[in-house]
């Protein structure tokens, strides 16, 4: 198994290891995020209702949301380890939690609940305006907070983060494409009798995400909280860099619901892109007129359903074509190849939000100063639009290439080099189509959020 050998283990750096083993990690980061989150909650629930004046909205949608996919790519689910909701969950559980076992229903259907929630939140955003309305943002955050607390009060560990958080699922998918992985040395783990990484010990609680590092083969449910690094008595944990997207073709268990989310995100990102383009209002009007609907919310809902279902149907069509060579069931092949679109999802998400970050980023500073009564006006952009556009093109092309390569490697690893291209071809065609459509959306100027 030479491919499993990793040349660099970051935990070999004594300073970093000491820090990750200390009680400072991840609490030092958590305290910062909890503090900022507190301000964001107060601002979005009780601050200015004008989105352009609200620090909570700016910090959430112009700074955090655009930066988060970059985090996932570089550091996996590190964000989830320092997420303020996770901290709230831990504290609530510690003080009042009943620590019940996770119900089978949540274990079994948690990802579907997430898939549906994610779709509904995206739809609600366009119907009621979550992003453009500070109160909408506050309501969303408050409902998440409520959900986190309720699940922490009832169940053990971080049930919300593992089974119910829509962002957790998104981050799980995105971090699969990422460059950093935490794994255990299986040879060492085989001799372990205590399983402290899962159960916990006096040094640290067990894995909050219900993972057992020895059997962990993907990044989806590791939030890099450091508990296993602290508790492992055998120094088995490794923290290593890796080739981006390599996880997709090395995984042995593919889950249909995870692939489904990946392919739905293609539609979601496309909807996000297209609804922010300058021509969108007239396009929506045209849809209204053509379909004779007379209500823009219903017209949007029709478009939304079309955008969600088309990528799923296209991937199913590609799977049906490939079935001639794979001989596998539609469900299995769909599950296996659905992951291949994640690099494109991630890149499109980054590209879309790069505009908000770079063209509107200064709004975060302006609104932050507004908290102290300092009124600043001026351009919100850091760099000129054409430069941002070039970066967006670069990201989408890189994402498309990453997805194409991942699809090919999935085919090669599962069905052999001789059949790889024939099997991958329909998927490559679909991914290319998604890539071109995404590319085209970035040729038109987007509207600002703030």
């Amino acid at each position, binding site marked *: 198994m030479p491919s499993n050998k990793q040349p660099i283990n970051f935990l070999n750096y004594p300073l970093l290891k000491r820090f990750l083993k200390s009680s400072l990690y991840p609490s030092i980061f958590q305290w910062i995020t909890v503090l900022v989150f507190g301000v964001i909650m107060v601002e979005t*629930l*009780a601050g200015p*209702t*004008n989105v352009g004046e609200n620090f909570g909205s700016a910090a959430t949608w112009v700074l955090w949301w655009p930066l988060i996919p970059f985090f996932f790519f570089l550091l996996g689910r590190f964000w989830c380890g320092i997420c303020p909701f996770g901290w709230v969950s831990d504290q609530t559980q510690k003080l*009042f*939690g*009943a*620590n*019940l076992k996770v119900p089978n229903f949540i274990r079994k259907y948690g990802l579907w609940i997430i898939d549906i929630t994610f779709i509904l939140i995206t739809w609600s955003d366009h119907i009621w305006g979550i992003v453009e309305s500070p*109160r909408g943002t*506050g*309501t969303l955050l*408050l*409902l998440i*907070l*409520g959900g986190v*607390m*309720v699940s922490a*009060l*009832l169940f053990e560990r971080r049930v919300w983060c593992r089974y119910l958080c829509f962002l957790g699922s998104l981050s799980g998918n995105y971090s699969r494409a990422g460059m950093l992985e935490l794994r255990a040395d299986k040879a060492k783990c085989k001799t372990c009798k205590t399983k402290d990484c899962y159960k916990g010990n006096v040094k640290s609680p067990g894995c909050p995400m219900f993972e057992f590092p020895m059997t962990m083969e993907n990044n989806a449910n590791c939030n890099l909280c450091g508990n296993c690094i602290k508790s492992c008595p055998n120094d088995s944990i490794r923290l290593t860099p890796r080739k981006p997207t390599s996880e997709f073709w090395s995984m042995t268990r593919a889950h249909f619901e995870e692939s489904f989310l990946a392919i739905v995100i293609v539609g979601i990102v496309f909807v996000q892109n297209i609804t922010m383009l300058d021509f969108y209002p007239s396009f929506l009007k045209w849809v209204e007129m053509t379909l004779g609907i007379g209500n823009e919310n219903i017209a949007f809902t029709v478009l939304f359903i079309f955008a969600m279902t088309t990528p799923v149907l296209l991937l199913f069509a590609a799977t049906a074509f490939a079935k001639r060579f794979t001989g596998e069931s539609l469900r299995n092949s769909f599950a296996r190849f659905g992951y291949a679109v994640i690099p494109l999802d991630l890149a499109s998400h980054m590209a879309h939000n790069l505009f908000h970050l770079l063209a509107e980023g200064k709004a975060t500073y302006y609104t932050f100063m507004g908290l102290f009564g300092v009124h600043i006006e001026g351009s919100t952009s850091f760099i000129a639009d054409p430069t941002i556009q070039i970066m967006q093109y670069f990201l989408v092309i890189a994402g498309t290439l990453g997805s194409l390569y991942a699809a090919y490697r999935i085919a090669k690893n599962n069905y052999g080099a001789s059949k790889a291209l024939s099997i991958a071809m329909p998927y490559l065609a679909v991914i290319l189509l998604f890539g071109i459509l995404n590319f085209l959306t970035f040729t038109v100027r987007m509207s600002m959020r703030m």
Partner: protein
Amino acid sequence: MNNTRKPMKKILLSLSLLLLTLAFAANTMAASGGLEQDAGPYHVTMQTNPENLIVNQAGTMTMIIKNKATGQPVTGAKVMMMPSTMDSNASNSGSMAGMDMSSGMDKDKQGGSPMQEQSSMGSMAMDPGTYMMQGMTFNQPGQWNQAITITSSLGASTVNFPITVGKSGPNFVLIGSVAGVVVIIGMFAAFLKKKKN
């Protein structure tokens, strides 16, 4: 064990329903109420939805116009909503820069926008003589004055309504509901924890 859980479930369900009912009731109540005035041959009732308009939040203004003498609804009238002005003690007195009507109506020379006569709204039938303006937003809190000119076969007349635009505060119903659910589940969790121990 099941016997003790069942009443608890019922209590939780009832409390959740109560909270939801309160939340909906609060929204429904916000749409009720109105101001009435006589202007020339007209008796005009004005309502806004929400009742307390909030800065930067789109609202709807509804006018029900009746013949003052007969009480019959006035239909087919030309009802123009003139530019809103702030009260004289406000900093930008006379200005209408802070008010916007985003319903896409064409404005006349005086900057007025026509209100549309409505016979129904969705599946709900409206009273005859009902005129509506949707998508009104005010970007400054304070006391505003809204002039409406009505022209029909009865004659032309102008009516003025005061509008109070409030600062948008927190939605305490929502916050209270979430907090309430968390507290109830917390009590339930404490009960389970105690039982477990």
